[in-house]
């Protein structure tokens, strides 16, 4: 087998960890980096955003929804962690979570905007994994996407309600602006050797800029068309 390239990527399906290891150490590293990233970031999200939101919720209904969402996000972390263990990754928590998790959640408004925006980024990344050559990762993404989409739809519905309230609208606008900017690095650097490896091995399809662009398009439609707010000036390129 000749080494895959970005122009002619690997397209076969790898059924399990044993097959991944038989194929190539580089394949294992590529799949492992994507999995490890999800392990760290799902936990960071659940801890930094979802759990504090339970206390911030304005009503019992919202509190209980936030509780369910937090549990689901924590469950996502555990499922990715299980994949990491199966692949034999040394310590998926060793790396740093994305900078978006440095954000300090202070209000319920911020939380619902976050669900609409940051979880949309998660959806964009997970949708790409539906074509992943590593089948355990593909199947996990397929399994988790409905839950992530629910989180986004919850965030959108609540954000729209708040944006329609003249008193709450300025805070929504501020949160949208801040969280979109915070989320853009989520997709990685424009010039990324890791991403090139992911695409060579069919773990991912898009460059980081292409994925970021998809997020920008979809979030812009929500912010501009559904909320009637201005979209912040952003750059599809990011190099740190």
């Amino acid at each position, binding site marked *: 087998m000749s080494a895959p390239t970005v122009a002619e990527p690997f397209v076969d399906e790898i059924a399990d960890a044993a097959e991944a290891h038989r194929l190539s150490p580089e394949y294992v590293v590529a799949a492992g980096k994507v999995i490890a990233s999800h392990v760290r970031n799902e936990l960071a999200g659940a801890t930094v955003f979802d759990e504090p939101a*339970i206390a911030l919720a304005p*009503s*019992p*209904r919202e*509190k*209980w*929804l*936030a*509780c*369910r*969402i937090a*549990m*689901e996000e*924590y*469950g996502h972390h*555990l*499922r990715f962690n*299980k994949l990491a263990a199966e692949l034999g990754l040394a310590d998926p928590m060793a790396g740093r979570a994305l900078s978006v998790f440095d954000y300090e959640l202070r209000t319920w408004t911020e939380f619902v905007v976050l669900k609409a925006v940051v979880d949309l980024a998660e959806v964009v990344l997970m949708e790409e994994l539906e074509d992943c050559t590593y089948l355990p990762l593909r199947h996990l993404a397929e399994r988790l996407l*409905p*839950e992530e*989409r*629910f989180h986004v*739809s*919850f965030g959108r519905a609540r954000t729209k309600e708040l944006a329609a309230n003249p008193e709450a609208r300025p805070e929504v606008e501020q949160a949208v602006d801040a969280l979109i900017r915070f989320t853009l690095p989520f997709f990685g650097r424009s010039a990324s050797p890791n991403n090139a490896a992911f695409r060579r091995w069919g773990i991912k399809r898009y460059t980081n800029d292409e994925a970021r662009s998809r997020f920008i398009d979809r979030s812009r439609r929500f912010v501009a068309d559904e909320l009637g707010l201005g979209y912040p000036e952003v750059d599809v390129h990011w190099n740190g």
Partner: protein
Amino acid sequence: MVAWPVEVVSDDGRRLGLADALGPGGSEVEELLNRLLSPSPVVGDLARWAWLADGAASTPVGHSSLPLAAVDFATGGERAAGVDPAWLAAVDQQRRAPRSLLVADGRSDQLEAALHVAMLLATEALDPDDDADVVGHVASGAQLWLLGAAVAWALAAPGANPFSPWAELATAGVWPIGPVDGRLVVAVPFLRSSVAHSASQLRKFTMP
């Protein structure tokens, strides 16, 4: 994701059941999780309605003498927004109480382990059938919220667990909601108005 029953390996290599690994109150946690994973349905068994009424009245913050209203989940979803905020704040405070006791007792590891196992099992067991079902998510979140509190209290005060009756209802699929407009509301799975009308004993427990 978590096989049941759970076996724990202690630091000295011994294999323990969950109850033993969690220390005092561990058997109460194990029993709660057993009920969660082998639930007894409420609907269809009229004898269980009395159990439901008694359990609902034993709220986490004391006995409620409000008339009971058993509703379907869709109605429960609507009523959930109207729960008495002062009552809910008291329940929240009650929820937080055992953590400091257990930490002071040097049992924070046992608490975290118990919550970890319980939430893993319960998140799966109480997963809404429809991923897009908002009310299902609200109900599941409430049930998880109650179960987490019951687990912590089981360790902190075995046999004197204020969340035990409501957690038991949750393991049977019931969603205890709370006081709303002078009634104590609980949502019961698969309850339909036709069921309520067919049994006179149920009328006093249901809202029209």
